[in-house]
């Protein structure tokens, strides 16, 4: 088979181009309500795909994804909000610099803060992952669940970032273009990773840990790597979320949020990127789509139907919507030269 690197690149650059065309020409005409749903879908896609790397591909059941999202969100929002308020010198220095290649100073600050948010979350991921990834199954789930709560309580008690009052006045840097470029970037990175040698090590840990070890895979290292990378993207998603909503509250990132992301991964299929994307969109949209029901019945049936849907789906498709299958036109495996 011949390699098709160029073809692959086009497949990925095209959506980015489309996103920016939409960004400049169409997005402003979307009603704000639908626009919000669209943006939350994007953030949820990043969260679900990155959690799938840990839960689906590496087989380590983490329940602390909201915690990493919170770390990333707070770090990036702290950088753009508190730091610039305290040191106006920084912002004047940046605004004096007129940006680079059409990018404004604020965009650069935003990208930098997102990166720092992601890195902050990965550091948290490393600190949690290293001791706890020796645990398996339920035990790991409980430890990561506990970690998420610790983060929430910590944030609640740090006054510099607002504590229980939350962190308001975050600049509205997250635009449609930036968010969905990150969505494509996340999907691309996870897809390439899973199909690389390192990704195969992740899969081998999921399939049979002892055999993976016997093959010479350093299983603890592989697990920590997956965890740290998953946390990085969750942190970026947190930063994007913070700069879209413009207000952070520690209660947003409680275990319910973690469950929500887990549900997306399980529903879409553990080990299917396509599944995570579809499930993230589906679950974000359905919550809103069921909202009119309340006006007719005067009872909030939303959660009842939502839960019922999940139960029915799990009974009929226990491996999730897509199992481990992918939309192959997009997620083509790289051709190999072995005859």
């Amino acid at each position, binding site marked *: 088979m011949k390699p098709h690197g160029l073809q692959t690149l086009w497949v990925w650059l095209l959506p980015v181009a489309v996103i920016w065309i939409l960004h400049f020409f169409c997005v402003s005409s979307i009603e704000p309500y639908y626009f919000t749903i669209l943006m939350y879908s994007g953030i949820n896609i990043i969260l679900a795909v990155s959690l799938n790397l840990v839960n689906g591909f590496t087989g380590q059941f983490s329940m602390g994804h909201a915690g990493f999202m919170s770390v990333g969100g707070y770090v990036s929002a702290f950088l753009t909000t508190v730091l610039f308020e305290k040191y106006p010198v920084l912002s004047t220095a940046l605004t004096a610099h007129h940006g680079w290649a059409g990018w404004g100073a604020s965009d650069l600050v935003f990208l930098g803060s997102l990166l720092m948010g992601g890195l902050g979350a990965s550091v948290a991921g490393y600190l949690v992952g290293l001791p706890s990834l020796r645990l398996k199954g339920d035990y790991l789930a409980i430890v990561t669940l506990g970690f998420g709560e610790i983060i929430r309580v910590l944030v609640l008690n740090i006054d510099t970032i607002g504590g229980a009052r939350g962190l308001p006045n975050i600049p509205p840097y997250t635009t449609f273009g930036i968010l969905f470029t990150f969505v494509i970037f996340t999907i691309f990175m996870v897809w390439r990773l899973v199909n690389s040698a390192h990704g*195969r090590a992740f899969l*081998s840990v999921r*399939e049979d840990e002892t055999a*993976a070890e016997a*093959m*010479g895979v350093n299983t603890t290292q592989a697990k920590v790597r997956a965890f740290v990378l998953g946390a990085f993207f969750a942190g970026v998603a947190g930063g994007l979320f913070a700069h879209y909503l413009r207000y952070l509250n520690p209660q947003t990132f409680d275990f319910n949020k973690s469950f929500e992301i887990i549900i997306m991964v399980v529903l879409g299929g553990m080990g299917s990127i396509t599944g995570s994307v579809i499930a993230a969109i589906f679950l974000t949209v359905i919550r809103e789509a069921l909202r009119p029901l309340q006006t007719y019945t005067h009872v909030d049936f939303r959660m009842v139907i939502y839960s019922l849907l999940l139960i029915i789906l799990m009974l009929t498709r226990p491996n999730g919507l897509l199992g481990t299958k992918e939309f192959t036109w997009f997620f083509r495996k790289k051709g*190999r030269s072995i005859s």
Partner: protein
Amino acid sequence: MQLHNGTPNTALLIKNVSVHYGAITAIRDVSFEVKQGEIVTLIGCNGAGKTTLLKAISGLIKVSEGTISFKGDIISNTPAHEIVKRKICHAPEGRGIFLNLTVEDNLDLGAWTCKGTPIQKTSYQQDLEQVFSFFPRLKERRKQNAGTLSGGEQQMLAIGRALMGNPELLLLDEPSLGLAPQIIEKIFEITVKINQLGRTVLLVEQNALQALQIAHHGIVLETGKIALKGKSSELLASDEVRKAYLGE
């Protein structure tokens, strides 16, 4: 650390090794050596400690007493992934292949320790071709998920995967388990071929007769202790072995 015991061509030296599972002693004071280029077979009944010993060699479990050394370096109680780097590859009991990955991915994982080193660039293709020449079925099915293979093919894959690590010492744990007689025959044939290409083989088997027929030396384990060891021709001739393991 260097050990000065054993002859220069000793590949694997096991000295007074004991292994415990909690309070239970699985291996008690076992010593033997495997010379370079030999096939040595470990035989014995269920629960004799054969698999445990193999796992101790490949670092999957810890040794509580004694030392295991490979080519003069002590390897006991080092992590499994370090041991694989020393070219000791283990085809685990019950095959332990990755059922949801393709045959090709399984083989690639076998070459994991060679990843990124010059070895990969030069010998990856060669190793792969060698594996496919031993097991042409794997080549036919290389795009298939390993879970769709038959038992015999899965065992071939387990051996092939271990060979992808380019081992100097190959540890085979009951490759004949649950297979049809013709396939067992074939697996043993290939074990000999692998050995003739210069790889040392430590073979754990319940199928004592066939194992002793291809091995140079044999070791009989009984409840964690060595009951007998010696040249396989001698073991085949010994009354004790014939009675206990060959059913005569």
